[in-house]
């Protein structure tokens, strides 16, 4: 072991800098011990105890800096001292202070204090913590977008009551999407905003995919939205009482940019539906109501416009917003349906004996629901089984195995425990495509493909690959299955609607622009099949 010492006269450094430099020296090769200290008697005592005190150090005064090192070789000792001197020079000229990362706040309250005029908090922490975080956000005066699911109903009521007192919005829990001031929250699509885009449609939806479908359809028709607010699926239950839908509706009614309003939900509790309708009538602003599966005559109150499907709601709102005639829209959709019926005739010919069932594999819960509603209407005697059934009796006992006509929502809890939502990870649905293709009774495999921010980068490509493999299996058995799909998205979405539709068409999928259109095609085809077999 070799000891080396350097003394720098009249140089002062604070002891902490020096400790750090000594610490750095200890990491260098061959260095056993090192000290960089001012030459005070106390420090010399320390050097003596560490057996680092050399005659050179002894001459140092408290104003001198001592650098000393014990290393395996003289070279290593000198290298360490050189290193320390370089560090000393650098310590006076450090410029990185301002570039150090800002520590992130650990709580919403702290973030709100630091971030002046924050107006919205997005929350996606685990469900049983989410309500407390949301309370903090509301107490800090921000609106809340609550993506988290598994938030207890009692907490939802507590949050929305508090929000109401403060004039704030709670979107969610389990809010998948919203577009506020042109900014997409959660899984939303790139759609035009009004102004400057023509139109000015404001939307309030208790359904994430319903909201996406309507905004995309408006975009396809060149109509912009003002605000698209998601309330969470339970908002229109009797317990929550539609608090956020009503508050949002009122806000859109007095919003000068909004010309037409669309409300979307599954059928609300009766008293809630009445309350919402009453609120809609409180203003002369046109209001399109799409309560999927509700009897249209229950909604048909003078002053509001009922729409049975998401597609129709968007089409009517677009027409009204642009100053057109909503009746024209209904007519043109009727004509489109007629075309779909003839298309179904042709597809019937590709199916063999025994192929009779519909198999819908959904990533969007609202699409699954809307499809069931439409098929029930088109096939009055048939049962449509589901893990999220419209008719309680049609619940699948095992969601992983289809039965007769099946519409399965792969975004339901039984499929997402411990795995990503199918919009993010299509693996499970891709496997299910092969499973349905193997079933000789399958006539139609039906898919929804959802684009937008935050979802899979190429969902149609992934599905197309699975479909091609399934077709391989079918070819071996000499069968074909009709693949029908619709893509919910826009050409401005990161995945691009046209590109995604083409991926599916390339593998022989019949692609339609909306879920309602695609379901109708399936429905007409099933009607043809039923003519052969008779109703079940």
């Amino acid at each position, binding site marked *: 072991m070799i000891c080396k010492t350097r003394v720098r006269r009249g140089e002062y450094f604070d002891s902490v800098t020096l400790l750090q430099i000594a610490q750095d020296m200890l990491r260098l090769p061959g260095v056993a011990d090192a000290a960089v200290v001012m030459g005070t008697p106390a420090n010399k005592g320390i050097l003596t105890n560490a057996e680092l005190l050399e005659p050179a150090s002894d001459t140092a005064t408290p104003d001198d800096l001592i650098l000393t090192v014990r290393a395996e070789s003289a070279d290593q000792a000198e290298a360490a001292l050189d290193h320390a001197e370089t560090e000393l020079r650098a310590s006076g000229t450090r410029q990185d202070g301002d570039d150090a990362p800002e520590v992130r706040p*650990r709580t919403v309250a702290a973030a709100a204090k630091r971030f002046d005029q924050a107006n919205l908090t997005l929350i996606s922490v685990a469900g049983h913590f989410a309500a407390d975080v949301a309370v903090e956000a509301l107490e800090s005066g921000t609106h809340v977008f609550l993506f988290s699911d598994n938030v207890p109903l009692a907490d939802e009521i507590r949050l929305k009551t508090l929000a109401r007192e403060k004039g704030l919005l709670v979107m969610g829990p389990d809010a998948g999407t919203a577009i506020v001031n042109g900014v997409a929250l959660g899984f939303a699509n790139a759609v035009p905003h009004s102004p400057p885009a023509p139109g000015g449609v404001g939307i309030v939806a208790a359904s994430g995919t319903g909201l996406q479908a309507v905004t995309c359809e408006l975009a396809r028709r060149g109509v912009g939205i003002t605000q698209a607010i998601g309330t969470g699926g339970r908002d229109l239950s009797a317990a929550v009482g539609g608090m956020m839908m009503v508050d949002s509706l009122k806000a859109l009614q007095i919003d000068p940019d909004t010309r037409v309003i669309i409300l979307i939900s599954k059928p609300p509790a009766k008293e809630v539906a009445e309350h919402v309708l009453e609120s809609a009538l409180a203003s002369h602003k046109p209001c399109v109501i799409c309560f999927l599966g509700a009897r249209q005559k229950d909604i048909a109150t003078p002053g509001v416009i009922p729409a049975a499907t998401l597609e129709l709601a968007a089409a009517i709102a677009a027409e009204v917003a642009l100053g057109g005639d909503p009746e024209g829209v209904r007519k043109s959709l009727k004509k489109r349906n007629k075309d779909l019926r003839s298309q179904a005739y042709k597809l019937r010919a590709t199916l063999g004996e025994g192929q009779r069932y519909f198999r819908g594999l959904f990533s969007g819960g609202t699409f699954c629901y809307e499809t069931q509603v439409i098929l029930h209407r088109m096939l009055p005697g048939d049962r449509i089984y589901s893990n999220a059934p419209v008719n309680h009796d049609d619940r699948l006992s095992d969601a992983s195995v289809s039965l007769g006509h099946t519409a399965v929502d792969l975004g339901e809890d039984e499929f997402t425990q411990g795995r990503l939502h199918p919009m993010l990870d299509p693996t499970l649905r891709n496997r299910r495509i092969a499973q349905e293709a193997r079933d000789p009774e399958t006539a139609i495999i039906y898919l929804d493909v959802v684009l937008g921010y935050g979802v899979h980068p190429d969902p149609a490509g992934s599905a197309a690959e699975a479909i091609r493999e399934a077709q391989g299996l079918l070819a071996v058995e000499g069968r074909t299955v009709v693949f029908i799909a619709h893509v919910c998205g826009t050409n401005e979405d990161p995945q691009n609607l046209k590109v995604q539709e083409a991926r599916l068409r390339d593998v022989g999928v019949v692609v339609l622009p909306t879920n309602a259109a695609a379901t109708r095609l399936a429905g007409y085809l099933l009607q043809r099949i039923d003519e052969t077999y008779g109703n079940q």
Partner: protein
Amino acid sequence: MAINDLFRQPIRAINVGLEAFRESLASQGAEVVQVDWRPPLSGFVALTRTASGIDIDAANAEALGRIIRGRPLLVGMGLARRVVPGMGARMILHAGPPITWERMCGPQRGAVMGAIVYEGWADTYEGAAEMAASGAIAFEPCHHHHTVGPMAGIVSPSMPVFVIRNETFGNTSFATQNEGLGRVLRYGAYGDDVLAHLRWMRDDLYPALRRTIAKTGPIDLRSLTAQALHMGDEGHNRNRAATSLLIRQLAPALLRTSTKRVAESVLRFIDSNDHFYLNLSMAAAKSMLEPAEGIEGSSLVTVMARNGTDFGIRVAALPAQWFTAPAPIVDGMWLPGFSASDANPDIGDSSITETAGIGGFAMAASPAIVRFVGGTAKLALNVTREMAEITAGRHEAFTIPALDFQGTPLGIDVRKVMLSGVLPLINTGIAHKDPGIGMVGAGLVRAPRACFEQAFAALRALCE
């Protein structure tokens, strides 16, 4: 804010959870702040009101107000047995929560042995250890006697102490004179050299300082600490500025009340010891915090203290209880020849400074200290900002130039610690684990979470 107001504003978002949502918002041009969220510590629920109907926030506001209004003055000195309330004839006070000789760590045992010989209760250190083990000595925490002691924190009856009176509330606190660096009792060193120094402090330093303070009249410690924070001190691990300011105040009176020889030795001693002010900083902190003890329903921490074996905290609403957990090892920078394997777990009452909003909490005032964590001046700002997450407010008198003269974060709220998972950060020295060796390094340490979980459970019981 009404819903319609939101429609007219650019989105300024706070994102809690999935990082992808932050990225998505930022890519759309919205301003967004990401919260580094962690689940609350175990057992957390929102607490707002005690079962007896006391609003916890209001109780904390009262506690905070009392701490801020407190004005600690150095008013005199005396021997512990004469001035410290409840000081028994065969009693030794120690740092941290209550502890027996059997569980005491090395440095604290070493200091106890030194103190026994210093008092003349035993002739040898072996004899002192036997006496300590025999039960003949009463061991009590300094904190049970309005006293605070750095590191081992040993106070025996014939040690001189400073007397600090809180002018606003009339309570009195005590602390010994700081011994300086090297082989000293507070780091567990004992031996003839250590005792000779203690005797000098009793026989020369103490009388001189007592005469001096009688001449100067009360010295305002809150003002002194506040000035030192503007001069690079944080009041715990750096006391160079405050010590210098103190000398300035004492020197004229010292020269008038002592011989030139004594005055010179006193000034030389204080000048050689950058931590001379530490004990006063601690006693001032204790003095400010005591009036908050016992405020019903307050969830603010009034004591954080370590004895080298346990770390303990006390809470305003539950003034008689200690909530303890094993003392952590300090993450530090090591003096030459020492490493982490030499370190004793965290020790000393000096964390009373953090409890009173200085020390680690005032790190932003002391960029010189920040190299302990291997960081930059910016990091010092960040530490202070982080501590603001768990405090009820800020001190009005203790301000930080680098934060535009914002007050230091003050009043650790057990509820906020639980909710955020942010544990108080303490800036501290490190003692050798064996008695008699002394200081081996310095660094940063976080208070153990278990102390807060226990305290919270006790507060929760008050609310049910």
